[in-house]
C-alpha cells in the first residue's frame, strides 16, 4: 500500500474531485473482486484503488495527505468481506442459478453430470448418461428460537421457489445440528431418487436461559424480603413456570437445582437439570428501609471482607 494514491488512480495531483471519482469508478469496475473471482492481481489492484480513493475522495484526508501529515496507508481500513467469499462457499448454493425457480427461464442449471459428462462418458458411449441419477442435496439454514430448539417445534421454511418445507425440530436440538429431510432436495434424473434437504439449525440465544449440554442455567433476581424472610417464588423454566421455595436468609449467588427441568429427555439422553442462581435485587432507594438500617443493631455483626485481609 506504499504507493502514491494519485499514481494508483492515474490522476494528476491537481485533479478535481470529479476526476478522482471518475478514475476510481473506472478502475473499480475493472478490478472488483466479485467480478474477477480468483484473480489475485485484480484483488490487490482493487484494494489499492479503494484505499487510494478512500484517501483522495475525502477532502480533509486528501489535504492532510498533500500536506504530508498522513501517509498513503493513513486511510486504509479492512473492507467488509465481499460477496465472493460467501458465493464460493457452500452457502453460495442459495443463489445457484439452477435454484432461481420460476422466472429464470431459458437456462437449465448446469448440474455436475452436464458439466463433466464429456470427461466421463466419452469412452463409455454415454451409457451412464441415460441411467437414473440421484438428485443433489439442497442446503438450508433454519433460524430457531432457543425454546423451540429445547422443547421441539415444527417450523415452516419457505424456499426461494415458493414451496414450503415443514421442518420438525426435535426436542434438545443443539446449535449447528443438521437435520436431513429425505427426498426433499433436488429431483433425480431419469427416475433416480430425489436428493435430501440438509437443514442447519442456527439457534437464537435466549434472553435469560443459557444452555450447557443438557443443563440449563438461569440467573433469577429476588427481592430483599424474599431473600431475608424466604418464601414461595415462581421460576420460569423452558417447560413453563414452576413454584420454588426460597429459604429465609438466602444470599446472592445461592444456586438451586430443579431436577429434570433442564433440556428434556431425548434419544438416549436423560432430562437435564435447571440451575437457578439467585441474585438479590435491592431496588430503588426506600426511605423506610434506610431509616431502619441506620438504627439496626445486627444480631450477628457481619465482616464479609475480613477473610480478604481488609476491614471494614
Amino acid at each position, binding site marked *: 500500500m506504499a504507493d502514491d494514491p494519485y499514481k494508483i488512480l492515474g490522476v494528476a495531483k491537481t485533479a478535481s474531485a470529479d476526476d478522482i471519482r471518475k478514475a476510481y*469508478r473506472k478502475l*473499480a*469496475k475493472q478490478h*472488483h473482486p*466479485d*467480478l474477477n*473471482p*480468483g484473480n489475485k492481481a485484480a484483488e490487490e489492484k482493487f484494494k489499492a484503488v479503494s484505499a487510494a480513493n478512500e484517501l483522495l475522495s475525502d477532502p480533509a484526508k486528501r489535504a492532510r495527505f498533500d500536506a504530508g501529515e498522513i501517509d498513503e496507508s493513513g486511510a486504509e481500513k479492512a473492507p*467488509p*468481506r*465481499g*460477496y*465472493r*467469499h*460467501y*458465493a*464460493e*462457499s*457452500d*452457502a*453460495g*448454493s*442459495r*443463489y*445457484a*442459478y*439452477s435454484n*432461481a*425457480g420460476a*422466472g*429464470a427461464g431459458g*437456462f437449465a*442449471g*448446469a448440474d*455436475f453430470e452436464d*458439466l*463433466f459428462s464429456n470427461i466421463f462418458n466419452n469412452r463409455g458411449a454415454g451409457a451412464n448418461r441415460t441411467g437414473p441419477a440421484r438428485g443433489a442435496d439442497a442446503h*438450508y*439454514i*433454519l*433460524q430457531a428460537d432457543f425454546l423451540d430448539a429445547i422443547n421441539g417445534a415444527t*417450523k*415452516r*421454511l*419457505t424456499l*426461494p421457489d415458493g414451496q414450503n418445507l415443514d421442518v420438525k425440530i426435535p426436542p434438545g436440538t443443539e446449535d449447528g445440528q443438521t437435520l436431513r429431510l429425505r427426498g426433499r432436495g433436488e429431483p433425480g434424473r431419469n427416475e433416480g431418487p430425489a436428493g435430501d434437504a440438509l437443514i442447519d439449525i*442456527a439457534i*437464537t440465544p435466549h434472553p435469560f436461559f443459557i444452555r450447557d449440554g443438557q443443563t440449563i442455567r438461569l440467573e433469577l433476581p429476588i427481592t430483599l424480603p424474599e431473600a431475608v424472610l424466604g418464601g414461595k417464588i415462581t421460576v420460569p423454566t423452558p417447560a413453563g413456570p414452576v413454584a420454588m421455595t426460597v429459604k429465609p436468609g438466602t444470599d446472592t449467588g445461592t444456586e438451586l437445582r430443579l431436577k429434570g427441568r433442564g433440556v428434556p429427555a431425548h434419544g438416549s439422553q436423560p432430562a437435564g437439570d435447571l440451575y437457578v442462581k439467585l441474585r438479590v435485587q435491592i431496588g430503588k432507594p426506600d426511605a423506610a428501609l434506610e431509616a431502619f438500617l441506620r438504627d439496626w443493631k445486627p444480631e450477628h455483626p457481619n465482616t464479609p471482607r475480613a477473610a480478604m485481609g481488609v476491614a471494614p
Partner: protein
Amino acid sequence: MITIDQLYIEFDNLSADDLNRWIGDLLLRPQSVNGTLVFQEIDVARLRLIMTLRDEFEITEPAFPTILSLLDQLYELRRQLRRFNAALEETVPQDIRSVLLQHLER
C-alpha cells in the same frame, strides 16, 4: 441471523422500496421463517454487491438480473470446480494427477 431492521442500520442509504423490490424479483433471497424474513451473511454481502453495482458503478437496475445471473452462473461453476477438485484429490492417485496437470499446463 440478521433482521431487516439490522439491514437498515448497516446500509443507511437502503430504502424499503428497493429492498422489497429486490426480494420480490428474487435478486435477494432471504429465508422466510414463520412469515419473518431472516437474512444470513451471504444475503448481506449480496445486498452490498447490489448496492455497489448501483451506487458506485452506476449500473441501472434493469441490468441487475442479467449481471447477477451471469455472476451466479460463474460462482456456481466455480463451486462445482472446487468440488470437482476436491473429488479428484480424494480419489485420483498423485501420479495420475501430475499427468493431468502437465497436460493442462501445455
